[in-house]
């Protein structure tokens, strides 16, 4: 039995930037808004937090600030991914020292590896930290996917708590839950698949959309955890158009734009990410209006 790091909704929170650094005051406001909205955990410095364009120092300082500010009110999951195992370990150990509750680590991207390499990569890190680790499977970004056999092997490690599944591969998701049960937790990594994933036993979602609709995403997971999939599905479908628009360009471009449109002043995107195209921006605004957040 592996107690899930969290049940419900965890926001993959954006990192508010200024022209030359991090806007920590804004980050604190966003965190309070999430806690008030019923979010169960903050996932800090994930892809949505633009970890790819953060220096090691800045990355570690954002995790540290987040942990201190949340102060035990909800869980903090630190994204500590790198396609360099040693760099990922370094970030993970810093996050542990800061007091994060768990780590989120994507599979090595671009250089990629084999299934054997995945086991070695995660075992190397899991052996050297004492925090629970959430694996992250997102083949559309990384170019490789876990197999069931690899999940089965990694689930044996006491520090590997489960996986954020964003492969869209429900055959893999269902056979993983069927085979590993409570010894390996699964969370949806896709906002448009929360209800189907949870109907099969996923414990919740690590969500991009929760940045703009924290209460609604939390509510979907609450209904699903209580077994009321009819109400959960109603909400999932009501916000589907908004969710789709939040992925109309590569994440986190639309979500950061949406927050700025809503007046949250989360600042610019860092290159190579850029402003949305005009036509997509109009589509996003239209979806925001229809869903009642604009």
């Amino acid at each position, binding site marked *: *039995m592996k107690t899930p790091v969290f049940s419900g909704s965890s926001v993959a929170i954006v990192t508010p930037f200024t022209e030359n650094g991090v806007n920590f005051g804004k980050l604190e406001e966003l965190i309070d808004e999430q806690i008030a909205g019923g979010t169960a955990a903050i996932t800090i410095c994930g892809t949505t937090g633009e970890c790819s364009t953060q220096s090691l120092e800045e990355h570690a300082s954002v995790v540290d600030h987040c942990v201190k500010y949340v102060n035990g*009110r909800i869980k903090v999951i630190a994204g500590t991914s790198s396609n360099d195992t040693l760099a990922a370990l370094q970030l993970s150990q810093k996050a542990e020292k800061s007091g994060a509750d768990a780590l989120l680590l994507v599979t090595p991207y671009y250089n990629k590896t084999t299934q054997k390499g995945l086991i070695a990569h995660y075992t190397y890190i899991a052996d050297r930290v004492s925090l629970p680790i959430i694996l992250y499977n997102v083949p559309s970004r990384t170019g490789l996917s876990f197999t069931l056999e690899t999940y089965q092997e990694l689930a044996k490690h006491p520090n590997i708590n489960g996986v954020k599944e964003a492969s869209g591969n429900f055959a893999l998701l269902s056979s993983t839950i069927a085979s590993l049960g409570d010894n390996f937790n699964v969370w949806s990594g896709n906002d448009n698949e929360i209800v189907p994933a949870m109907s099969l036993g996923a*414990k919740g979602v690590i969500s991009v959309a929760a940045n703009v609709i924290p209460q609604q995403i939390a509510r979907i997971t*609450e209904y699903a955890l209580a077994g009321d999939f009819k109400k959960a599905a109603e909400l999932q479908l009501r916000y589907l158009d908004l969710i789709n628009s939040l992925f109309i360009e590569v994440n986190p471009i639309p979500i950061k734009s949406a927050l700025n449109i809503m007046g949250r002043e989360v600042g610019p995107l860092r290159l190579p990410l850029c402003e949305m195209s005009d036509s997509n921006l109009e589509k996003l605004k239209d979806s925001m209006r229809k869903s009642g957040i604009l």
Partner: protein
Amino acid sequence: MQNIANISNTKYRVGIIGATGMVGQRFITLCAAHPWFEIAALAASSRSAGKKYGEVIAGRWKMSAPVPSAVADMTIYDAEADKEKIAELVDFVFCAVDMKKDEIKRLEEDYARLEVPVVSNNSAHRWTADVPMVVPEINPEHIEIIEAQRKRLGTKRGFIAVKSNCSIQSYVPLLSPLREFGIENVLVCTYQAISGAGKTFADWPEMVDNVIPLIPGEEEKSEQEPLKVWGEIKNGAIVPADAPGITTQCLRVPVADGHFAAVFVKFAEGKKPEISEILRRWAEFSGEPQKLGLPSAPKQFLHYFEEENRPQSRLDRDLENGMTVSAGRLRPDTQYDYKFVALSHNTLRGAAGGAVLLAELLCAKDYITQNQR
């Protein structure tokens, strides 16, 4: 004192009496993830006895985290009929039952006489003179009364220790470090969450958009229990403090978790501290749990918010896993000397969390030991 570093080598086996109630569910959630404790037995009324916990609790589980799977498969014991059996399985029990006061008193004494330490969330024994009522940061020394209680009960290991009512845990911690200034009078209005009645909005829809002006028995507890917590041990009994005078009104408000208090306080003539002095006392107040590094102890017991619109229930009740008590809006008053607002998580600091912290203190101080296996 036991070496705390060694405590976690073998876990203490815990029984939870009243496992199906809301506080019992909190105990299960806290113990399932606890570094020192493991759940060894669950007990409830005869209606649930003999059934699997997961089956009995289906539809009644109110925690946000799911039922731990190891617990779901456990068979529930009968809290009355299976006492001897439970006594063999556990090192101590948490007790949070919904029964008549006299029955609870007897039940808890039965367990104590079977040499089982009882850490209780119930109010039944709060006024038994040799039963300590402990907020671990405030009156840890009261656990020394256990020796006198053991003599009365004729036990070697068994005893009863209780935590105070949830309502007082929002204001008593903030008043405690100010007692040396001679607190004369305190007026408190509490705004209490519905989980204090074991309810959620789903099963208490009348509470939506509503305030109920009566919580039976709550005002008496809120006025009297602080005096026992601030009392002293004399001749094998805890003698309550005779001051300050406390008057309260306790209201049920439409909030899921977190008891609020609006507090007015008057000090003895000429002893009124400055606001900066009060803030300093709060910031520096720490107790035995912090010194011992107990697993559930918050690093900062009292957290003062400078922001005028804090603390807020939803935002701040879970500070340091719901074990920190927060305050705000400290300012002079026209009738009393000062007023402020305070917030404490009623089912964590105020109930199960406070009882778990008390159990940790009792383990660290060797009042609870590991039974022979």
